[in-house]
Every structure is written in structure tokens, then in C-alpha cells.
């Protein structure tokens, strides 16, 4: 290959993007690292305090709790990002009349704001809401379950809302995957006498694998930053039981104004995120190229 032609054109095109990257990604990243080693707090003068923030984080039970909750969210959201969306994609992967309407309906929560979604779900979760009515009718529970106020239920409730809201995104990813599988593969298997379930495990699942990799990567990044749902549904309560990493960082920075400390927490969370993304990439991309 010859060396690239010397021309300014590509760089001129890239200029706005590079400038925005510099101002809103690179510069903040440098600032984040810098601030993490200080006691910056807006109100008091700032001092360089070395590793003190990180040392304090290590002993901060609240921070460890927040990380733990984020992991719970990450695991809890997996079914909503892989299993359920694959089922949904299979359900809508046909040419039935009106199928487009159902795809759109399942995708609707994705395009609505989390604030609106939270208001709507309050009617589901209320003591006298639909869910409690259903549970009592089916004799699962005797009295009302306080979904958002009970420490055993609150985080699960947040996960359900997040999972419900995001499922449509993943459904579309898997629908793209299903539609990339040539029809004759299924037809050939059918001629060979393979049943529906056999074809699903032998053809569909292996070919969906790169899409699973994409879905899980997106899920990890999203789960680590769950914030708005917590903010509008529980404010981290009851008793910090729904405080996620994202919410913890926000509240330390903008409620307690400990920006240095919160920056350090952000860096720890980011490192965890990158490690998880790499591990996930290693595990899921074996034997198959990523579709991106």
C-alpha cells in the first residue's frame, strides 16, 4: 500500500469533532484525574491530598454498598437485555399484518423519558396500585407490598423499570441479528428433520452470538450508570438500599459538594467498567467477529 496522500481535507472535516472531543472528553478526563487527588469542594480552598480520597473510598461502606448495588443491577438487567429481548425479537420477526405496530409498541418505553416512565410506574407500584391488586387477587400476598419503600423490594423495582424501559433497544439488536440469518439455513435444517427448538439452539443461538456480545457490552455500560431511575423513583432509599454507583457519585458531588472525593469515586467506577468491558469482550468475542 502506498502511503496516504498528503492533504489537509480529512483533518478539516474532523476539526469540529476533535475540538468537541478535546473540550468535553479529554479536558474533563484530565480534570477528573487532577481533582481526584484534591479535596476540591467549591466552598473551601483546595488542597492536594494525594491518595487520601482513594484510601477513604476503600473504607467507605456506603461506596462499597453503591458498587455492590450496581453489580446487582448489572446482573439483574441481564435477563432484560439478552433472554427477554431474544424472545421478543423472535416474537416480532415475521410478516404478520400489523407487526410493525407491535414492534413500535415494545420500543415505545425506549423513546420516552425516564421521568415520565417513573411517574407512570408509580401507579403500578403504589400500595393500592395494579401490581398489589394482582398479587392480592392471586393470593400471593396478604397485605400490600411497599415496592419502592421496602428495602427488600426497592432495588428489584428499580431493575424492573430499567429493564422494562430498555428491553426494546435490545429487541431491535436481536431482530437485526435474526434477519441476518439466511432463510435457507433454517429450511435446510427443517428438511433434515430438525424441530423448532433444535433449530433455535443449533442455528439461531450460535449466529446471534456476536449480537449477544454487543448487547452485553451496552448493558454493562448502561447498568454502571443507572441514575435517573433511582433519582426519580427512590432517591437512593430506603436507607441507601437503591444507591447505585452513578447515584452515589452524583449525590457526593452535587448534594455534599465533595467534588474531589466524588471524582475519585468516578475514576474507580470507570476502571471497573473498563475491566468488565474487556473481560466481556474476551469472553463473548471468542470465535466470532463483533458486528461493529
Amino acid at each position, binding site marked *: 500500500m502506498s502511503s496516504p496522500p498528503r492533504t489537509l481535507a480529512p483533518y478539516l472535516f474532523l476539526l469540529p469533532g476533535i475540538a468537541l472531543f478535546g473540550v468535553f472528553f479529554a479536558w474533563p478526563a484530565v480534570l477528573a484525574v487532577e481533582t481526584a487527588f484534591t479535596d476540591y469542594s467549591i466552598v473551601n480552598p483546595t488542597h492536594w491530598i494525594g491518595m487520601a480520597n482513594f484510601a477513604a473510598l476503600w473504607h467507605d461502606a456506603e461506596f462499597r454498598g453503591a458498587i455492590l448495588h450496581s453489580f446487582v443491577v448489572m446482573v439483574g438487567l441481564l435477563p432484560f437485555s439478552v433472554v427477554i429481548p431474544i424472545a421478543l425479537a423472535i416474537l416480532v420477526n415475521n410478516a404478520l399484518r400489523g407487526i410493525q405496530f407491535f414492534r413500535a409498541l415494545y420500543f415505545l418505553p425506549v423513546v420516552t423519558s425516564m421521568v415520565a416512565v417513573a411517574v407512570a410506574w408509580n401507579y403500578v407500584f403504589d400500595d393500592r396500585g395494579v401490581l398489589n391488586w394482582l398479587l392480592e387477587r392471586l393470593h400471593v400476598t396478604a397485605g400490600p407490598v411497599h415496592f419502592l419503600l421496602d428495602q427488600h423490594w426497592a432495588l428489584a423495582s428499580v431493575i424492573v423499570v430499567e429493564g422494562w424501559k430498555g428491553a426494546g433497544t435490545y429487541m431491535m439488536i436481536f431482530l437485526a441479528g435474526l434477519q441476518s440469518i439466511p432463510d435457507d439455513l433454517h429450511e435446510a435444517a427443517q428438511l433434515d428433520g430438525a424441530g423448532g427448538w433444535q433449530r433455535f439452539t443449533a442455528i439461531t443461538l450460535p449466529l446471534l452470538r456476536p449480537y449477544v456480545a454487543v448487547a452485553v457490552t451496552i448493558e454493562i455500560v448502561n447498568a454502571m450508570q443507572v441514575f435517573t431511575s433511582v433519582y426519580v423513583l427512590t432517591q437512593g432509599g430506603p436507607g441507601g438500599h437503591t444507591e447505585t454507583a452513578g447515584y452515589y457519585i452524583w449525590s457526593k458531588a452535587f448534594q455534599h459538594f465533595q467534588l474531589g472525593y466524588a471524582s475519585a469515586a468516578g475514576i474507580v467506577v*470507570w476502571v471497573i467498567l473498563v475491566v468488565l468491558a474487556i473481560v466481556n469482550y474476551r469472553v463473548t468475542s471468542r470465535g466470532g467477529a463483533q458486528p461493529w
Partner: protein
Amino acid sequence: MVNVRRRRRIGRYVLLIAVGLIFAWPFLFLVATALKPATQDVFSFPPSLVPRPPVLTWLRDAWTEIPFPRYLLNSLLYVLGGVPLFVLVSAMTAYPLARMRFRGRTVMFFVVLSTMFVPTELMLIPRFLVVNQIGLTNSYAGVVLPGVLSAFGVFLLRQAFAGVPHELAEAARLDGCGEWRLFWNVMLPVVRPSLAIAAIFGFIFVWNDFIWPLVVLSSDAKFPIALGVAYLSGISGTDARTLSAGTVISLIPVVVFFVVLQRHVLEGAKGAVKG
């Protein structure tokens, strides 16, 4: 045989509708509550979805309780300012990545990719510090600019530009077309469908964005509608019906937009994976 197939199809529809209800029910209750008269309980066992009779009082209340028109206008301004910028910057960044050979191309590719792995929530504090330093806190530009560069938009359009036949660009070059004119007059029109998809997603992002405006805005005069609704829900004593009504109003633009353009939105959601 025909009967079996027909029964299966009906079974499919029953399943589709049942699943549809799971996705629709919170919204159904939201709309029902917004229309229920004061004489009807918001909650009842069994739950009721039918307002008897439907009233518009709460929609009017929500409209006046908080400066709703102001918030809607703000959201519109954020969309009108942010979305064209988002589309243009995405296209300008994607174009050389898709069509040109130059030194640093791989680096640029990873730069764009890296933005996907820096979650907004973690960039919140340092970005706030930067925006503070350049004096953009509590400004419209401060709300819009950080979201303009996104891996999603760049990869979506890179894919589109890569699919444009080479003959087209060659023909334009032979006609003495400069790089910018080639981009602006030939390439952009060809990838218009993808530009539309980028614009639609830009609209949805901007309309629903919550955490960044929450952090960067100090005056509620510049609140977008999502913050307005959160503010309404935080006012103690706000009636559940008024809150529902306000939420319904905030949803109307984005839902209408989605219903009209759903085909493109769903294509975009699919296409984004295949970058």
C-alpha cells in the same frame, strides 16, 4: 391444515397483544389518571382504566401550575440548536473515517469509540468543571454542546458513507468538484435517510435528557420539559392527577414524533449495530 395455520396465527396475535399490554399498561394508567375527575379515586380495587367522565381540568392545572409553555419552548430550543449540530458534526466526523485514507485514521476511530465507554454519569463532575471554567453554566449552549459528539451518530453515518458507490465520488471529482462540495452537494444528499435517522435519535436524546441539564442549569427558566415534570412531581401537594396530566403533556411531542417516524426509528435501532 388451513385450520391449524389459522389457529397458530391467532395464537401469535394473542401473545403479541398480551406482551404489548405489559409495555403499555403504565402508560394506560398514566393517561387514565390524567383524565379522571376529582370524584373518582385515582386508585381503586379493582383498578379502573376508565375515567368517568373524562375531564380536562388536570391538563389545564398542570399547564398553569408550572411554566409549562416555557419548558416546552426550552426543550424545542434545545432540539433546534442541538440536533442540526449533532447531525452535522456526526457527518463531518464520519465522512473522512469512511471515505479517506490519512495518517491518524485509526487513532481517530478509537477516539470516537472511546466516547462510548465514558458514561455521562462519570463525566458529570469534570464536565461541569470545564463548562464552569468556560463560563457556559446555566446557558443553552452549555446544555447542548457536550452531547453533540457521540459514537452512535458517527458510526451510524460512517456506515452510510461507506455504502455510497465509488463511481459517484469519482464522477464528481472528474467534474472538478472540491472535497467540501463533494461532501455537501453529493454525499450528504445520498445518505439523507441515515441523516434522518440520526436526527430522530438526536431529537429523542435531547428531549429526554435529564441528568446533564439538572447539573448544568441553575435557573428553572431554562429547564427542559423533563426537568419541569420532575419539578412538578417534587412540589408537595401536587395532585396525582395534575402530575399525570403534566407527564402526559411532556410525552405528547415525542410520542407523536415516534408514531409518525417509527419505521425510521426502528431501522436506526437495528442499523446502529451493524456499523
